[in-house]
């Protein structure tokens, strides 16, 4: 369905979450606790059928860590961005969306490696890009590496 049909569908079903509009996609802001069942509803309901997670990434908004899910449907070809915010910076933990999309396994491995966000019930969480004894999470804004990185 088209963008505004999707918007008012989301307005009815997820009225408690805020809905904003970025340059390309509509964004649904969901609190950390019920991220998994919101995404499960979006995937399972035949009206939306978001069965394709094409990009899952994290953005370091300096005090908080923000997780962004880009999902689309291969039937209706409409796109949606779902965002959550994780306040806790020392050990941020969130549900893994691996049960819904198997692509999430590699995406979340990389997010854990770069941002340090732990994913519970993830099949094999490991540092995928860097060596195991690497200290710190490079893509965080407060990552200190004075020898290599010149501000």
């Amino acid at each position: 369905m088209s963008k505004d049909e999707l918007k008012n569908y989301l307005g009815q079903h997820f009225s408690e979450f805020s809905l904003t509009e970025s340059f390309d996609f509509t964004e649904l802001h969901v609190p950390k606790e019920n991220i998994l069942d919101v995404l499960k509803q979006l995937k399972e309901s035949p009206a939306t059928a978001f069965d394709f997670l094409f990009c899952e990434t994290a953005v370091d908004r300096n005090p908080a860590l923000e997780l962004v899910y880009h999902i689309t449907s291969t039937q209706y070809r409409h796109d949606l961005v779902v965002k959550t915010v994780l306040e806790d910076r020392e050990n941020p933990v969130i549900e893994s969306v691996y049960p819904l999309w198997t692509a999430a396994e590699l995406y979340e491995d990389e997010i854990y490696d770069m941002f340090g966000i732990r994913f519970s019930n993830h099949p094999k969480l490991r540092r995928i890009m860097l060596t195991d004894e690497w200290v710190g999470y490079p893509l965080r804004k407060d990552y200190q590496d004075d020898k290599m990185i010149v501000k």
Partner: protein
Amino acid sequence: MENIENLNNEQLMTEEFVINIGPQHPATHGVLRVEVTLDGETVKDILPHLGYIHRGIEKMSEHMGYKQSIYLTSRMDYLSAHINNHACSLLIEKACGIEVPERAKAIRLIMDELQRLTSHQLWWGSCAMDIGAVTPFFVGFRDRERILDLFEANTGNRLTMNYIVPGGVMRDVLPNFVSDVRDVIDEVKSNFKDYTKLITGNFIFRHRTQGVGYLTKESAISLGCTGPVARASGVQCDIRKLYPYDGYDKLDFKEITDPGCDSWARYFVRMEEMKQSIHIIEQLLENFPEGESRTKLKGVLRVPAGEYYQRVETARGELGVFMVSDGSTKPYRLKYRTPCFSNLGAVTAIGKGLKIADLMATMATIDLIVPDIDR
């Protein structure tokens, strides 16, 4: 050693052993380590280890200006260098609202499709070499060199061209560009019969790829696979058709999908895509527009704050550039959604239960570029 008869069963039980198809291996075409547990010849479990070529491009682009970080993308998937630069340029043009002249759009599309041709030709050579035939590698490179001469004449370099920049193309093409491209295209078209003679019609190659490496449509979608790997399992996901950019909607070409789901289908989809690329280039050459090839931009670019996402169809799938900008001269966060990273999931999904030789054939037809995975 007591005699064999009274050795009960679990003492004679065979045990699996783990081999590393390691960072340096002819079949991985780069530095991807795949830890494979084997029971004899059949593969029981696959665990890829990445990061051997992780250079931290996303962290670097946070310290660079918008126009500076574009040249890094052609070091990620170096076989679709033009298309990667095209993605970043489109993103910045969309964000700042820059108008691109018609001639620049046509040149960009021709360069993209030529790049797709060179990528498929190199894939064809190295896929045949993984399955054992060495001569197709040289036949594939013969045609590829013809197109690389074209790139070198017009853009200055053979592999990492940095030719497509925000606002158009770096320099206008040579005057006899259209006739050169037409000669190269005719030659590549006439060489197609070599491809069928050498590999497509080859009896052994068919037996090595048909019914091998089965990726169902549902698992392709849930794994996030895009490009020829997904289209060979029947998923319609060609970005040039779904979200056309720079004049793809005005061109008529078919999106090749094949319900076959096995290595042979992936091979067939790429061979047909080569023909479609040639068809596209011929259409673009007919009415090749005149005029300006680049709109001048001021030195330091400031992108208005916000989040932008641009999708482009590279030779291996959908490259998505996700940028968060806070209005300064440097991007706040730049994330590249690369096709090979999710296609790698398909290797682990398909690999279980295959023989080693089939695992190599499947990895050859999934066509991974390792710096594209590690970034």
